[in-house]
Every structure is written in C-alpha cells, then in structure tokens.
C-alpha cells in the first residue's frame, strides 16, 4: 500500500514537472518573476545563512579543539577539519536541510494558499499554464542562487572559526589559518556546489508540488507545508548518500 501510494505520488510529481518545464507563455514575464524569486527566496535567505554559518563554524572549531587532544595529531588539524566539514557537509547538506524548512514551507504555503483561494483556477481559466507560471521561476531562481548561498556559508563559517581563534585561547590564529590552507582539495568545493544545485531543485520542486495539489482550506495548507518540508528533507538525505558515493569515490 505504501509502495503503491509512493509510486502514485512519484508519478504525479513527474507529470507535474512535465507541466512546469514547458516553454513559458511570455519570456519577459518569466524573467521578471525569476528575478523576484531570486530576491524573495535567495536574497531573503542570506540573513539566516549568515547567522547559522557563523555560529556553526565557531562551534565546529571549538568542538574539534576540545575533542582532538592527541599529541600525535598536529594542532593545525583543527582548521583543516573545520574547513573540510564545512566544505563537504555543512555548506550544502545541512544548510539545505535548514533551507528546506524556511524556503520549502514558504513555497508550499504560498502556492497552497493560491490553490485554496482559487487564484490557480483563475490562472488556468485565463489560459495560463499555472504550474509553469508559478513554479518554474521559483525553481530556476532558487537553484541559480544556491551557489551564492553555499559560498557565503563556507566563507562565513570559516570566519566563525577564525573569531574563536582570535578571541579565545583554544587555538592560535596562525595555526587555524595554516589548517584552513593545508591539503586543500579544490574538488571539495565543486562537490559541495553540485550537491547544493540538486538539493535546491529538490526543495523548490517538492514544496511546490505539495502546495499545488492542496485540497481544502487553511488546515490542509499547513499540512501540505509540513509534508513538503519532510519529503524534501528525506530526499536531501537520500541524494546526499547517492551523490557522495558518485562524486567522492
């Protein structure tokens, strides 16, 4: 039963994506809406990304310093480990799990409210492909802006660790800086960026799907928003495993 329902939902999602990824009725309108979505979903997420990144960067540095006490491990490994944790997991997977909550619920509730207040029906009756008009700019805008959020997250998290080195006596600034630069692998940055693009797509498309097919009223919009966040979080974790296996092995 669960398998049948999951397959049916996946089928509906694929058909929905088929409607979303069709040529826009007016490219000019699509461009304007995409810029609006970049502003609302992407730029609007910057404050959250900044706050989370600086604190998590600081916490990772403190945790590494407190837990890596063996004299066999060089002191600069604190900076190195902070950098690699941020590059490999935090700046993409963890950040996207957090953004699934903020951006995903925003998208699902916005589209869900449009559904229950008949705004989507109004678009359809006018002859507008509502799925394409409403959802494609959100997906394109958010996916395009994801690399900016990831790079910002990486930079700010490292600044968080740097502040720990500067204002506490846990680790010296020079060792932390040395660790950040030691054994750097450029591919880790690309790996994080590729993952973030996939996760950005999952967040925007899954949340839109749940919002678009809401039936009922305000209660159902809330449920759809929660379901959208849960489903996209699970998919992010699943694709994290798949992409890590594919890209790092």
């Amino acid at each position, binding site marked *: 039963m669960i398998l049948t329902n999951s397959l049916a939902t996946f089928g509906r999602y694929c058909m929905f994506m088929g409607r979303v990824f069709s040529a826009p009725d007016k490219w000019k309108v699509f461009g304007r809406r995409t810029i609006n979505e970049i502003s609302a979903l992407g730029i609007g997420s910057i404050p959250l990304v900044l706050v989370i990144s600086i604190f998590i960067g600081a916490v990772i540095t403190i945790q590494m310093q407190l837990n890596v006490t063996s004299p066999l491990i060089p002191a600069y490994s604190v900076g190195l480990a902070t950098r690699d944790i941020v590059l490999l997991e935090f700046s993409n997977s963890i950040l996207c799990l957090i953004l699934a909550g903020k951006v995903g619920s925003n998208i699902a509730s916005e589209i869900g409210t449009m559904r229950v*207040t008949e*705004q989507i029906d109004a678009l359809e*009756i006018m002859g507008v492909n509502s799925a394409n008009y409403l959802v494609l700019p959100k997906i394109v805008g958010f996916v395009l802006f994801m690399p900016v959020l990831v790079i910002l997250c990486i930079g700010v998290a490292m600044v968080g660790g740097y502040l720990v080195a500067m204002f506490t006596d846990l680790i010296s600034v020079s060792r932390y800086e040395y660790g950040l630069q030691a054994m750097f692998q450029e591919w880790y940055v690309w790996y994080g960026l590729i993952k973030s693009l996939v996760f950005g797509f999952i967040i925007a498309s899954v949340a839109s799907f749940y919002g678009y097919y809401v039936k009922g009223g305000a209660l159902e919009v809330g449920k759809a928003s929660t379901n959208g966040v849960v489903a996209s979080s699970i998919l992010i974790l699943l694709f994290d495993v798949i992409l890590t296996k594919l890209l790092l092995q």
Partner: protein
Amino acid sequence: MIEVKNITKSFDGRTVLHDVSATFETGKTNLIIGQSGSGKTVLMKSLVGLLTPDSGSILFDGRDMVTMNNSERKELRQEIGMLFQGSALFDSETVLGNVMFPLIMFTKQSQPEMRDRAMFCLERVNLKGAENKYPSEISGGMQKRVAIARAIALNPKYLFCDEPNSGLDPRTSILIDELLSDITHEYKMTTVINTHDMNSVLGIGENIIFINKGCREWVGNKDQIFATTNEALNDFVFATDLFQEVKEYVLKNGRSEHPGAARREFKK
C-alpha cells in the same frame, strides 16, 4: 451562445450531473440555480473547462470544448472571463496589476496601452482611484468589482460568475447584480451566473436554469418563475414567508404593480 448537450459527470461512482442539457443565450444574464449539492458548481466548472464531463458536449458558438485540443482550448479560454466566489485576486499585485494581468499575458500592447485599458475597465466598475491599492486593502464588494474589471479586460465573449454575491451585504449585492447585467447588455456577452441569491434570481434572471439532484428540472425567466408549478423550484425560490408573500402579490396583481418594480424604475 453556449449549448450544453447531454452532459454527465460522476465522481467515484456517484453521478453528480445526469444528462444535463441547457442553452445559455448571448446578451442575456443566464442564471444557474439550485440547492447546495445539486451539481450546479460541477456544471459551472465543466463549462469553464476545470472539469471534463464523462459524456456529452459543451458548444461555445459551435466549438466543442470537450473534444478540442489544448491549443484550441487555450485560444477559447482567452475569450472567457471568470468571476470567482472569493474574487481570486492575486495578493501580490495591486488592483491595477490584477486588471492588467490578462493584458500582459495575452496581448502585445505597450505598457501605456495596457494601463489605459485597465483604467478604463476600473472606471467601468466605478473603482477609479483604487488602482494602487492591494486586494487586502479594499472591501469585499470592491474586490468583486476588481475581479469583474479583470474578467472583462480582454473583452471576453463569455463571462462566468460563481456566486458573485456571496459574503456581500444586500445593497452591494444589488450593485454587483446591476453591474453584471449592464456589462452583459453593453458588451453583448454570454453571462452565466451561478447563484443562491433570490434577489438576483428575481432581479436579473433573464434565462434561469434550475438544477435539482443533478438534473435540469426547469428553464424560464424571472417573470415565469412566479407561475412555476415545479414543486422543488417553488420550495427553493420561495422558501421564506416574505418571498411567498411577494409571489402571491405578483400572481394576484402582476409584477409591474409590485412596489419593488416602482422602486427599480425610480432608480433607473
């Protein structure tokens, strides 16, 4: 003219519309009336293409909406304006933005031309001066009028209204009815109104279709309805003592003698 021929629609084995046929005439206000759950909303949704009937045809001046392909349907939809029960205005757009929306999507007019057309439509519904407000900043009656302005922006041949008076006070309801009636006659549109409001039925019902338990039971106009022998229709329209008294008065003295008729003439 819209002709509905023998349409049937079922949901999960439950038949909601049984072989319904009706004609909605051009230049008239056509009303669909019936109790809650009678199938009139399903009929309306089938007419605008939100639902596809299981059988039968819906002809828009000879073009069958049921069998036409997507591009033909898209073309037809640009000839349709719709007023929703809850207005369905786009929250993120101003009043002007809402009215300009169909023009932006479906015309190649310049920005000033679209603005002029939108302003003309807003003036037509007496909303000049509200163009920069957002839907949340205006009253329910004003929202309905904005929705009418948006519906007529593309100069549609067919106008559909789903319970246009729901949630409005009686005075505003009459204004909306009069506006819909005037627009219908002015632009020679085929207007289809789904309503529960007996004031609308007796006020602007030029062609009334009564749906009961999924079947079309009666067709007539606002004058003929007083003399109906259909029990279900009689119970539905003249359910209150007041309307029963009005009916008895009209049957006895004629509609033109009723004080309400004099008041309507005075207003005109």
